[in-house]
């Protein structure tokens, strides 16, 4: 009873209930976010100079993260750096003397 066999999974009632519960929670969250977020991009795109103190705090945090990770998008010098890091890690992992015996 209350079971669905799809050929790949067998869903029982408990699983379905959990799915419906989380889906409902998800939809509530969407509605909640939608009220908070609507028009946000407009205000940020055109009213940066009217930020409140709280906005300035989060703006500084965003700037910090953007500066720290923004190199990812700065083509192409950063890509050479990324390539160098990848090669270095591979070389260290492979050529720095292995324990032998294949994979774990």
């Amino acid at each position: 009873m209350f079971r669905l066999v799809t050929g790949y999974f067998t869903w029982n009632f408990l699983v379905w209930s959990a799915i419906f519960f989380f889906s409902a929670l998800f939809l509530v969250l969407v509605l909640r976010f939608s009220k908070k977020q609507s028009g946000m991009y407009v205000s940020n795109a055109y009213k940066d100079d009217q930020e409140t103190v709280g906005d300035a705090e989060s703006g500084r945090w965003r700037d910090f993260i953007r500066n720290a990770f923004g190199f990812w998008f700065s083509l192409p010098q950063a890509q050479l750096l990324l390539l160098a890091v990848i090669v270095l890690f591979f070389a260290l992992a492979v050529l720095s003397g292995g324990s032998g015996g294949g994979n774990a």
Partner: protein
Amino acid sequence: MFLKLLPGWPLPVIAIALPLFSAFLLGCAILLEMAYTAHTSGPFERKKVYLKVPFLFFLFLNFALNYLVWSYSHNLEQTFFTLGAAGWAETLSGAGGGSWKAFLRLDPLGAMAALLTSFIVLLAGLRSLADKSDPITPNKIFFMLLTQGGVVGIFYSGGITNLFLFLLISQIGATGLYRPVRAAGLKTLNFFSQSAWYYASRVLVMGMYLAGTLLLLSKYKVSGFTQLHAVMQPGVLELSAYVLMASSLFFLFIKPSSYITDASKRCYFAMRGYAMFFALLRVNFLLFGPMRGLDRIPWLYILFGGAALWAAFALTTTNRDPIRFTESVELFLKGFITISFGLSLNGTGSAAAAAEYGLGALESMLSLWMLFLPISAALSIIGCLLKQKYAGSELWTLGGLSHKLPFTGFVFFIVICGLAGLPPFPGFISRQFLYRAANAVSPFLTLFLFAMSLAVLFIGIWYISGVLFGKAPDAEEKIQGDAQIALPLFLILIFLLFSSAAPNHYYDNAVSKSVSSLMRISYAAQDEQSQELPDPDDSQDVPDVEPIPGESE
């Protein structure tokens, strides 16, 4: 017989030759046009229909060809095609592939990848044909065809030299699609400096792969993956070759794409990243296998995957531009794929590990990888649409677009759900396998992955809410967005909904065959012919599902 529609030409060869030959013809036409223009010093009058109709015909023919190859390879383990003096010959062992001979390999994994790629090529082509802001040109089609030919060649490559050739072709195609553009106000010297960096990075990557290939060729004189593996012994030269080849392929997979607002070009960049991961699979599973000295490599991939997830998390929270958002979300998915790749490598080293979590990790990796391309294509198409101008502003800055772009908003929502692994979308099953495999290695890894999945979900909702909900913009002029991208999005939606509604068909036909193919490769690579293969179907049940009382197989 089925594979030989043209005399002596197997279908996989035709599938590679079609885009390359089309590119050749178009290249000749472009040269003639340039010569005509130079000679008459006037513009060449060309009707668009002469460009669009053949391209449309190519898109469908290409898809049909790859579908035929996939349907042929479906019940096949693997087969090889070698070009000799008497033309193409089909062999089961792959023997006879010399150092530089044309040598193709057909297995379910490669055929599935080629089919999915041709599907995305079709979507990107349709989008490109309908794009009014960036109309299609002969040059663009030429580089698209070149990239497509290279990518399909990668999927059917049977050896390291063939792989290099197709990598090079796809790189030339992708470079042609990107072509550094001089920004307004940028000095000539600075522009050349930037272009030089770009070309230097690409030449370096190709050179690294070539160096690894030459190292192996100089010692062993054979290029076929399986032949090379059979004779290769662990040593400094072999491990150095691995570093050069694997790091260059991994870089090409994980790196961000260029900032381009053309959806069809972005689809091709995603396709290339997808093909690079395939090449990485070939090199790791088929060429080197669990070679002594590579025992730390699975952990390195897990480390890189974790770093990619952190970077993606930071980038998605700070970038609202839809192209940047698309790129960051792709990085999320790449991070998950990389971690599942590390787990798969770690879990297929022994039969015990494979039975415990290796097969699940493989299923997870391949299903996430197959999901990468349609999701990336959908996000690229939507992201580029949101960059279009409306009443002096870009669409994404306006908010309330669900009233104007209802279908786009719906697909955006479905894509984010699939990406985040929400049930019942195909990403959900992949995540179940991934969590299970990760839990076998470390519960902290499971926790980290679960937290990151939740983060994708919330960031996705946050972004969608900001773009789609709220007060609708004043409708002074009509937004044509939905109509422009409806067809490609609709096709992607069908793919996502089909794989959600019939997961058994999706996994049986697409994922499990490829997993079996990889497992056979992995075990054959160990030269342990007597070892019994674990049945991939054993991993297809999840632990939290109860068996049905009284029902047996």
